[in-house]
């Protein structure tokens, strides 16, 4: 009794600490802060002790970029699959048309400005980096718009635009995987993976881990052997996973606690941990490594994309399309700027397209710099007095 009485305050403090740690962790997961935190640590580390940092980053690059990021890509595809399936928020193709046109305009704008700058500087070696300029950070756009334009119709518009853009980018970078050798024989392994996944689906296996552990692993081996980016290993497996239609609330915790959503919660937490490592391994560059690629990427993302999006939407409206309800031109400018941050996806695309070297460093600095797009969106919302800044 005496010992309990003595222990109680200690236990309470311990619980409070655990509670604070859990809350902090929760904020990191919900606010999508894992990757920026990893990048911030990496940037400081790389510029303070570069040799130690790069040895560390080099040793972890393969497991993080090629294995861990398969879960990130898988989660994105899972989210999209649930949103576009019957009953999902994006099932109607009519909802896609204007954001799709805007995405095409954004891609043309960002790629066009990027390539124009690179050509203007006669550095054609940077041409290959144009998909990096097109990348949109879905989470950044989501949180910025949810904060400043929560009820304008801008949120689903930009999310659709971002999904379409990043899907396009993934299709471009998947075959550009840099590998030393192509072993072949991957097609057979992939067929086995798909066969097992199909059998599990037919047997109504509801647990996710067998799909990931067996089929995902086989798919990873298949892509790797064929010289394709193995981070896309879960893409062909995701359609076999148990799905439930959901509203468009990407990367947010689903409210239900059934088996499907429980798994997604765990998956999301795992992915946040991987994104932290991804930022830590890939975000560290010497700040004096900026060069032409940095400016080209910033120009493409922060200027080219908003101009491309707005031009495409203007052309579509002129051709008879209607802006979504609650979305005026001022809000659209803010939405276009909110989509200018490439950050997570830009870093992912950069590591998929380029290998170690100064080109990757230049574009990494640019990718991190595009995070300024979120600030531009907030500034524009304040200037135009829209959303939460409306009087």
């Amino acid at each position, binding site marked *: 009794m005496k010992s309990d009485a003595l222990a109680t305050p200690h236990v309470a403090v311990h619980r409070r600490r655990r509670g604070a740690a859990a809350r902090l962790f929760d904020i990191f997961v919900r606010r999508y802060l894992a990757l920026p935190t990893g990048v911030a640590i990496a940037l400081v580390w790389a510029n303070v002790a570069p*040799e130690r940092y*790069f040895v560390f980053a080099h040793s972890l690059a393969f497991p993080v970029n090629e294995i861990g990021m398969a879960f990130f890509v898988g989660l994105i595809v899972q989210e999209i699959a649930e949103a576009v399936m019957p009953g999902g928020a994006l099932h109607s193709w009519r909802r896609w048309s204007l954001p799709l046109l805007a995405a095409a305009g954004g891609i043309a704008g960002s790629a066009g400005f990027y390539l124009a700058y690179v050509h203007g500087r*006669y550095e054609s070696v940077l041409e290959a980096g144009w998909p990096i300029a097109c990348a949109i950070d879905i989470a950044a756009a989501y949180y910025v718009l949810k904060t400043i334009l929560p009820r304008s119709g801008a949120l689903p518009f930009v999310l659709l635009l971002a999904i379409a853009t990043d899907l396009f980018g993934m299709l471009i970078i998947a075959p550009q995987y840099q590998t030393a*050798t192509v072993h072949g024989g991957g097609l057979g392994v992939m067929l086995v993976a798909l066969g097992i996944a199909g059998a599990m689906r037919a047997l109504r296996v509801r647990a996710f881990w067998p799909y990931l552990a067996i089929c995902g692993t086989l798919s990873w081996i298949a892509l790797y052997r064929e010289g394709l980016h193995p981070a896309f290993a879960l893409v062909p497996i995701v359609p076999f996973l148990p799905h439930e239609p959901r509203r468009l609330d990407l990367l947010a915790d689903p409210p239900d606690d059934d088996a499907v959503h429980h798994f997604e919660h765990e998956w999301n937490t795992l992915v946040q941990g991987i994104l932290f490592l991804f930022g830590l391994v890939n975000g560290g560059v010497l700040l004096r490594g900026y060069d032409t690629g940095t400016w080209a990427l910033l120009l493409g993302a922060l200027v080219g994309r908003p101009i491309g999006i707005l031009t495409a939407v203007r052309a579509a409206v002129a051709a008879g399309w209607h802006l979504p309800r609650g979305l005026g031109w001022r809000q659209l400018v803010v939405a276009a700027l909110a989509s200018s941050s490439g950050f997570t996806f830009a870093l992912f695309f950069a590591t998929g397209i380029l*290998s170690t070297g*100064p080109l*990757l460093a230049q574009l990494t600095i640019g990718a991190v710099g595009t995070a300024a797009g979120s600030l531009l969106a907030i500034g524009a919302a304040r200037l135009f007095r829209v959303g939460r800044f409306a009087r």
Partner: protein
Amino acid sequence: MRRVALVLLTAWLATARLTPAEQNAARAVEPLPTRPDSLKFAVLGDNGTGEKPEYDVGQQMAAARRTFPFDMVLMLGDNMYGRQDPQDFVTKFERPYAALLQAGVLFYATLGNHDDQNNRFYKAFNMGGERYFTFVKKNVRFFVLDTNQLDPKQQAWFDEALQRSDDQWRICFFHHPIYSDGGRHGSDVSLRVILEPLFVKYGIDVVFSGHDHVYERLKPQKGITYFVSGSGGQLRRGDVRPSGLTAAYFDQDQSFMLVEVAGDEMFFEAVSRSGATVDSGVIHREPVGSRNSR
């Protein structure tokens, strides 16, 4: 007492005001031996501007060849700046080095960040259409890398090429320096952590790079001597930030290098656009096994 302090201050200021060329000139110049059976070559980086300094350096190289008959030139990347149309190959390469080309001197190029990747097909660059390649001259094997991107395929190729080499000297050249005190770019540490272990493991003796528009020789790192020679046409005056790694440097004018490999010794000179020798010395080849202890 005040007078002593004034004298000391004046003496210190006079020393501090010495330009790098003057400081280097204080060192004894090691003349190139110009032995008949040695391998002689020149080294040039970041040259292809098509402007007067590039032409001046070309003339100086031709003049140097009269007393030091080198047969080849290593080009360390950024061989062409700006537009790279057929006419540019004339004004930025063929004319500045016309005397050398007419004398049959061979140029071996590596790609820099300003070079069009298709320039590897330009015959006079002797790249055989490859981004990375190797060739042998006498007792020296040269490894040429494309450090714009050190992709896994290139790393695997390099590892294999090093394993196969049993040549007496192994010299590597590429554009981006892994050791440099250049203020604008400096050392590319991300490349270093990949390349240096291979250099040490397989016994690379000397490495030449450009990118920083200066001349610098670094103190041997793990037994390997690194040169930055990136002022063959471009110049970033006063850009070197000397550190504990710096052995010698020159950042006041354009420059190129003359190198002679004779037996176990490699003699070198860095020559300015005006023909002054701004650094010189000799490197004694070390057995591979003795390097790791350094």
